[in-house]
């Protein structure tokens, strides 16, 4: 109560002039000596709150948004531990412990699913970013303006091709009987290839299609960062006699590092999720390919389509979340040790 009072004062007089500012500050320091421990932290917070009143106010809509849109529904995590029942609400349903998690390992594929999911995501993250950086740099070096604009637009096209349509095109190219690839091979007298029966090929195909579809999108981020780099750096380096590759390596690349680390960290948190449509549409019912192409999301989708169970769906989500959570906390902690600037939070 008292803290509130002081910070109220503190804030109120803050804009009135320097004198009050120090006066009140002195006052609060006295108070802090009386109160201690946790109250102290609270007081510090309120102090900060009033000092950066406007900043807090500017952040407020965001905080409220996530509170309502994301934090309120989180009570639903409890579904993961109950037997869903239409007659009783969330907290009246029977508690079943970890029973809802069982289906994850019952088929004996959890380990492989986890491995596949993490593996694909790592490939997407690393290759996706490296390619995006290279392309962004190359594109930014183009001097013909209309050409640059045009190619950049074209590279964005795949983003609009939905996976449903992509799967149709892919089937058209690779199917055994009448696909474009085999027609071509036949013309050269080569043996036809049954791509849809070769699990290993799909590791590469899936990564390829992911890159193809998302490159235009992720490149924009790097392109924007490069655009933001001041031209003066380059001029100075030029005068010092650095060649174009040196300028890129010593100026552009380091400037992109922050962005890269941020994207990396972000992607790591959801390493167990994502890209459902890519896998679901391209592979679909083809069980022959599951060993190399089944990820957690597709597995959960297929399994729950037959049971409609809210509890099990939540349980699967929780497993993905926990995995990502532990990973991201660890990596963020390490990065913070190395360089605070790069840490996500």
């Amino acid at each position, binding site marked *: 109560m008292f803290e509130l009072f002081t910070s109220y004062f503190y804030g109120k007089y803050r804009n009135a002039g320097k004198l009050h500012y120090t006066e009140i500050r002195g006052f609060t320091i006295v108070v802090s000596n009386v109160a201690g421990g946790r109250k102290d932290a609270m007081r510090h917070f309120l102090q900060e709150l009033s000092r950066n009143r406007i900043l807090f106010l500017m952040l407020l809509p965001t905080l409220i948004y996530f509170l309502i849109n994301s934090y309120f529904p989180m009570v639903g995590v409890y579904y993961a531990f109950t*037997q869903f029942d*239409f007659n009783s609400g969330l907290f009246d349903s029977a508690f079943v412990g970890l029973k*809802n998690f069982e289906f994850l390992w019952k*088929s004996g594929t959890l380990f492989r699913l986890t491995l596949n999911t993490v593996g694909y995501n790592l490939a997407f993250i690393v290759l996706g970013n490296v390619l995006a950086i290279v392309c962004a740099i190359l594109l930014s070096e183009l001097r013909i303006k209309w050409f640059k604009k045009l190619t950049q637009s074209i590279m964005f096209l795949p983003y609009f091709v939905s996976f449903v349509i992509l799967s149709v095109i892919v089937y058209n190219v690779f199917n055994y009987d009448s696909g474009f690839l085999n027609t071509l091979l036949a013309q050269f007298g080569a043996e036809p290839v049954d791509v849809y029966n070769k699990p290993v090929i799909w590791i590469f195909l899936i990564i390829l299609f992911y890159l193809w579809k998302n490159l235009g999108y992720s490149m924009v981020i790097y392109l924007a960062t490069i655009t933001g780099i001041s031209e003066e750096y380059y001029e100075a380096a030029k005068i010092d006699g650095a060649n174009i590759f040196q300028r890129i390596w010593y100026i552009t690349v380091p400037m992109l590092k922050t962005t890269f680390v941020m994207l990396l960290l972000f992607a790591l948190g959801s390493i167990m999720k994502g890209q459902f449509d890519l896998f679901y549409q391209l592979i*679909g019912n083809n069980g022959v390919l599951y060993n190399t192409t089944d990820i957690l999301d597709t597995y959960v989708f297929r399994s729950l389509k037959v049971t*409609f169970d*809210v509890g*099990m769906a939540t349980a699967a989500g929780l497993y993905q979340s926990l995995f990502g959570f532990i990973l991201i906390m660890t990596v963020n902690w390490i990065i913070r040790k190395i360089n605070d600037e790069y840490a996500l939070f």
Partner: protein
Amino acid sequence: MKKKSLSKGSLMMLTLVLIMALLSGCGGGNGNNAGSGNDSSGGKSGNDGSSSATGQTADTGIDTSKRVELQVYMLGDAPKDLDKVMAEVNKMAQAELNTTVKFNYTSWTDWDQKYKLLLSSGQAIDLIFTADWTSYQSYAKKGAFLALDDLLPKAAPELQKFVPQSMWDGVKVDGKIYTIPSTYKEYVTNGFVWREDLRKKYDLPVPKDLESFEAYMDGIKQNEPDMMPVSLNSDVKNNLHYIYTELNKMIGALPYGMGVKYENPTEVYSFWGSEEHKEELKVMKRWADKGFIPKNVLNIKDTMQDPLTSGKAASIFGDNPTRFNESVIAVQASHPDWELGYTPFGETTGYASPVHPIHNGFAVPKNSKNPERALAFYEKLVLDQRYNQLTEYGIEGTNYTVEDGYYKMIGTSQSNGFPREAMNGWAWRNPEYMLFDKSFDGVKEIFAELDKIQKPDLFLSFAEDYTSYQAEKAALEQVEKQYLYPLQAGLVDDVDKGLATFMEKAKQAGLEKVQQEWTKQWEQYVSESGIK
């Protein structure tokens, strides 16, 4: 300076917050009003049937003194002219039941997810479509719907008499009625579909069992090498496996590889892993080797009918009479010189089951605010010709006309705002008021044939309770897709080994537990319902 910037910033934010509030107010307001309207009325109407002589009283004898708006949820897409039709319906319902009705559509996009959300979120819904393929039995068992046994005599006595008792019994789950079945009798059993013109041209046998069908495909492969002998897509379970078992007189689409023969329903065995199963897989392997099943069948996403009607495929392994008729119409329009032939499986198996009452129905979800009014309205929908024909065929003169007792659409399905049965009101079809297009005569003929050999469906009343083995059930689904689908599509070279692998994986996933539980429940069901 400082002050000024401050107030400007706050002002800016205030404006935006206001805009947001306004936006949410606009839309939210509607929802709110509807909601509160229901709130105030719903509580009372259910209490007492005999009271309140002051209000309007419908002929059904329930209290209709409070005006309510019913929320009805339908599957699929709303027809374009829904508003016009509903305006007419509401005019009548307002006068007769003091009720207006709002039909909401889930659309076919993610309909199963939306269906689940509607029921599990506890929304106030008064009527919702049910069918075996929307998992009526599971939802009823888990308590999603209101039991109608006590409500029906009061709110919809005529309807209760109209639907035969055997049908009411058929939809019972754990001894209670949860849905109002449709009384229209139709067959959705399968039959061979083939190109009659090609059959005649190359003098091939008429497909009427597995052997002759294979011979027909052989002939097509020989004479029309560029054609697919049979139309198939990635859903091999439904389009190959279950059709094969239907031909082999097994009951329905049983899960977990359970096997029950129609002639001997009390005896349950594991079809998976049996000699019979191996036999099926060997047939499929042979078909694949002969090139009947495309190598990449598991990635084909075409519909079953498109390849046939466009001339890419020469047959469908199994399709129901109504859809066969649609294919005929499509072919007549685009290739008048082609001909399609049809043999219902009933001719091979010696019996055909009309649809089970569960197949089409409407339930009252347990969160309904106006269950009585909902039933009273549904009674009108089925039994009152004005309501019924309006909601099935649209406005006479605008959407359709009647010629010689036949339904005739005005314009085409592309231009008409309410084609036949556009509201998807399959469940309230009333045989007495039904109008058919002339082209439907073909289907009626097939139905008449099947009527001669009809036997009731024994399977659908069985409501499985998988609570105790749902983890195993989910895991099995995965194993089945991964190891059995390729076998069913004839893709695995060594059938014996492939089947052994599948069985081993299935056992690891808990097949035995699932089969035991299922068998126990089935046996109980069989003995309780007196099936022998």
